[in-house]
Structures are given as structure tokens and as C-alpha cells.
């Protein structure tokens, strides 16, 4: 399933500690809260950039000015550059953030009240050995649990949900650019806006087959590049991060599109779901963890 990666020198790709061709990055703009396993490399943004580190300013200098608005997404583009240039033999790519990661088993038993698919885990229980074992993907994909935007009493989708939470015109423009960049075809643009299943973190959290991840992050990058050039948003306060919000949804759609092409079958009646054992939801979904001692998830805290 996953071939063993040929050993490289640490200068080229320090992910050699990963068991199976896995290049795993952790995007951070602050000092890390836990001691991540040796196979996880830190991609440093903003104030966290250090001499000799994998810095955004060195890996993707064109994205450096946009970091305040793109947040971790700028780090994702930098990590892609690193993987393409320094880890060409990686078969799988993993990505976590300084306080969020996906594990293949449950590590914490408290769920965030405002984000029920996210487990709250105290940093004290996350030793390096626990993380080393829990973050290793058991198969080709390791994803956070997807959740339905629709419920038994109301239907929703990316467009409606985005309009409730943010400024809807941004998602419309982002989708238009995705069509123009040929990331989505015209029928998919409609399906994307009508999609009601969201994979938290999109293509920026979890483990993915390298060819899929590189191709799709490259596609995502092309859309974001046009958007930041065409629509300056720096005056917008919280919603200035619109392209990052839109990217999470497009990333989620691109991953779901790929997973739905795999074998297995799922029955869905609104929020009720049942799947065959081969279906991706039974094979590739782990737990999304938030490293915190607090009682709830606070965006951007």
C-alpha cells in the first residue's frame, strides 16, 4: 500500500523518521504546544520563523505578505513547495497545525461545545510517544470526521452556511475563479455550492496520497493567487481571512470528490448515514483533536 521511503539526508527532507514515505508538516506561527514526533517538521510562519528553520519567507516568499490574511493556508503552500522540491519520493503527505491534528484513534473524551466533531485534548497527555503512535496513518488517507451541514429539521450547504457565517460574495467570487482556473467545471461549481458535507480543515489537515495532495493544493493555490490579486480584503477585519475560509471549503470538496470515486457505498437520508465497510468513511476517518486546556474551541485563540 505505501512503499518505504528511501532515506534522504536531513537537509533535504527531515521527514525520514516517518515510517512509510510520509512527509508530515506542522504549520505554526507560535512556539509549539506539544513535542510532535520526529517525523513531523515545523513550517514556521510569522513570528515563529527562525534562522535555519523551514520558514514561509524562504519557502514561499511570494505568500509571506499574505500570511496575516491567509493564516495557516500560506504555510500549506510553503509545505507543498518543500515537499515538491525536497521530498520528491514522498508517497503520502501529512499536515497538522500547532494546536490541531488528526489521530487515528480517540485521544480525548471531551468534545468542543461549539464544534462537536473536535475533541479537546490537554497538552499534558500528549507525549511524544503517544503522538508518534496516534498520528501514524493506518492507510492511504487519515481524515478528520466530516459533518453534515444539514440536519433533520433544516437543509443547508456550503453557500448557505458561508452566507450565515461570513460575507457570501467572497465565496461566489472564489468559486468563479475556481471555474476560470479549471479547478471546478461548471456543473461542479453548482455541486460545490450545494455540497452539505464539510471535512474540517479541508485539504490542510490529515494525511493524503502525495500525488493527489500536491495536484490539488497546486490547484487551490492558483485560485487563491488570483483572488488575492483581484480582490484586496485587508480592510475587512475578521472577514479579511475570506480566502482561507473559502479554501477550507474547496479543499473539503476536492477531497470528498476524490473519496467518492473510490469503492464502497453509503446510504444517506438527511443526517442519517450508513456505509459499507469499504466506504471511505469507515476506512479513513480518524479524530480531529484540539490541543487545549480550555473547555471550548475559540477560533483564532
Amino acid at each position, binding site marked *: 500500500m505505501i512503499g518505504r521511503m528511501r532515506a534522504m539526508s536531513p537537509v533535504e527532507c527531515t521527514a525520514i523518521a516517518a515510517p512509510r514515505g510520509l512527509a508530515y508538516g506542522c504549520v505554526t506561527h507560535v512556539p509549539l504546544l506539544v513535542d510532535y514526533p520526529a517525523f513531523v517538521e515545523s513550517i514556521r510562519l510569522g513570528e515563529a520563523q527562525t534562522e535555519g528553520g523551514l520558514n514561509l519567507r524562504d519557502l514561499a516568499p511570494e505568500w509571506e505578505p499574505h500570511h496575516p490574511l491567509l493564516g495557516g493556508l500560506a504555510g500549506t503552500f510553503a509545505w507543498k513547495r518543500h515537499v515538491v522540491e525536497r521530498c520528491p519520493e514522498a508517497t503520502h503527505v501529512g499536515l497538522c497545525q500547532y494546536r490541531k491534528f488528526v489521530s487515528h484513534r480517540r485521544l480525548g473524551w471531551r468534545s468542543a461545545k461549539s464544534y462537536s466533531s473536535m475533541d479537546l485534548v490537554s497538552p499534558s497527555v500528549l507525549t511524544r510517544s503517544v503522538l508518534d503512535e496516534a498520528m501514524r496513518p493506518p492507510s492511504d488517507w487519515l481524515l478528520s470526521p466530516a459533518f453534515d451541514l444539514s440536519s433533520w429539521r433544516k437543509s443547508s450547504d456550503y453557500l448557505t452556511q458561508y452566507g450565515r457565517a461570513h460575507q*457570501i460574495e467572497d465565496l461566489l467570487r472564489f468559486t468563479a475563479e475556481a471555474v476560470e482556473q479549471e479547478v471546478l467545471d461548471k456543473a461542479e461549481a453548482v455541486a460545490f455550492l450545494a455540497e452539505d458535507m464539510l471535512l474540517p480543515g479541508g485539504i490542510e489537515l490529515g494525511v493524503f496520497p502525495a500525488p493527489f495532495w500536491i495536484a490539488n493544493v497546486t490547484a487551490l493555490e492558483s485560485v487563491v493567487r488570483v483572488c488575492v490579486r483581484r480582490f484586496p480584503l485587508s480592510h475587512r477585519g475578521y472577514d479579511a481571512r475570506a480566502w482561507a475560509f473559502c479554501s477550507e471549503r474547496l479543499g473539503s470538496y476536492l477531497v470528498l470528490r476524490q473519496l467518492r470515486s473510490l469503492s464502497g457505498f453509503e446510504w444517506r437520508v438527511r443526517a442519517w448515514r450508513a456505509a459499507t465497510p469499504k466506504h471511505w468513511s469507515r476506512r479513513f476517518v480518524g479524530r480531529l483533536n484540539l490541543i487545549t486546556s480550555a473547555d471550548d474551541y475559540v477560533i483564532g485563540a
Partner: protein
Amino acid sequence: MSTELQAPGDSGLVYACLTHVPLTLAFPSWIVPVYLGQAQHDGALNLRDLAPDWAPHHPQLGSTAGAFAFARLVRERYPNASRIGVCQYRKFVSRDRISGVRDPRYRVMDVVSRSMLDPARLDTALRPDAAEFLVTAPRRFTRVFWHRRGYLKEYARDHCVEDLLRFAAAAVERGVLARDEVPKFFREDVIIPGGVELGVYPAAFWFESIDAVELVARACVDRYGTVRDGSQARLWSFCAERLGSWLLLKRLRREVHAGASGGVEWWSRLRWAARYAGQLNLVVDDDRPHAGYVAG
């Protein structure tokens, strides 16, 4: 009321015919021809004179540019107009059916042969009489109640979907569509062909609507230099028709006391269509067989 119509502005009605080709029908004297593109000529009411800022965008806007020009003309010359009418060189809305022959491709439209429209008959057909609104009969994209294609999906099938997305984004930015209105606009399954650019409307409503459409179209042409070929050339006009249709639907549904999405949609549609819908007609040449309407 109808007998008083002799010149534009009589009975408060100002009615334009928008054309980019020389007119071959004998339109009545109370119709104002507005010329676009190659049809413009000295001494006429031309787009380039009435709205020179829109003249370069005529290929992307088609007759919609003429509607913007006509709005300026009415404001300037007929400030007391109470009703506005708009038709095109080969399309108009009549109160009653004329030919009874449906277009084979576009069932909501009748095909009328040019020879049937002598000046007197055309005059009679175009008169709205006392009607406050006279619009095209509504069309549903889907006939089964459990499925809705909606404006977005229908647009994606026939045109370039990114244009409608951008147009809707600009409409939100300019305050023409509310943020929570966008999903409803995209899901709307009833269209009034021609939107606010084909038929007769109360002047206050028409100015408010056409100004809104113009504001959005301006934002789009300023931001995007999109040029498309062939049948997709009039991209912003296609979007303007849908926005106009949505604004019109909201108003007509309000007239019959249904909500913005129509309440019990089919019931409210029956009620407002009975009051306000006429017949859309396409004029065709007698000597050329008509295989079906092709936009553009």
C-alpha cells in the same frame, strides 16, 4: 385610455423598442425606437448619444445597454411618465395571443409571422390598456415538484457559470441582493423571460429595478474585462435578465400577498399570472422556415 395613445408619454406611458438592426415592422407612433450598434444613425435616439458610457459594452450587454439608455431618456424628456414599456425589434409582449403558434424550442413564446402584423394590428397588440404590469408568462425550469433546477444550475447548463457567480457577488456588494437572498435567487425555479426589459411596468418600480441592474452591470464591466464569442457574447445581459426576473417576481408575489419565495408557489403564480401576464411573441419572416428560437 387606449385611444389616447398617439405620442410617447400619452396616458403616462413611455414605450421603447430597442433595436440593433433597422426596424422592418411599422411600430406605432407612440413607440420610441432606441438604436444600438450598427443601427445607430444621425438624428435617431442612439445608445452612443443617450448613454455613451455604455456604448463600448454593447457587445456584452446586448439590448440591456439600450434599456439603460432608455431610462436616461425617460428621466430627461418624460419625467411624468407613470408606466414604462419595453419591446425589442423582434420580441414584444401582447395582452392576448396573436398567432397561437408556440415556438418549438421555447414554449413560453409564440411565433408570429410578419405578414400578420399590419400597423393597426401591431398597434392594438402592443397597447397595454390599463394594465399596471404586462409581463411575459412565467416559465418553470422543472415540471416535477420534487426537483428544482434553479437559476444557477440552469445558467451553468447554458452559459458560463462564473459570470452569474460574479454578477451575484456584485449584486450583494452593491446592496441589490441581501446576503441571505443569494441562495434563494440561485434556487429560484420560476423565470419571467425578459426580466425588467420586456413588457410594461409601473415607472417607479422599473426605475428602481433598472437602476439596480445598471449598478451591478457597471460593477461587473469595471472589474472584469470578460469577452466571450458567439452565443455567449451577451454574458452580462443573460445575468441581468435573471436579476430582473427575480426583482420582478418578488414584486409580483408581493402584489398577491405571497412571500419573496412565493408562499405556496404555484398558487401565487396562478394569481399574479392571471393579473399581469401577457403573451411573449417572436416576429419571424414569412419566407424563412422557423425551426425554433435561438438566443442572440
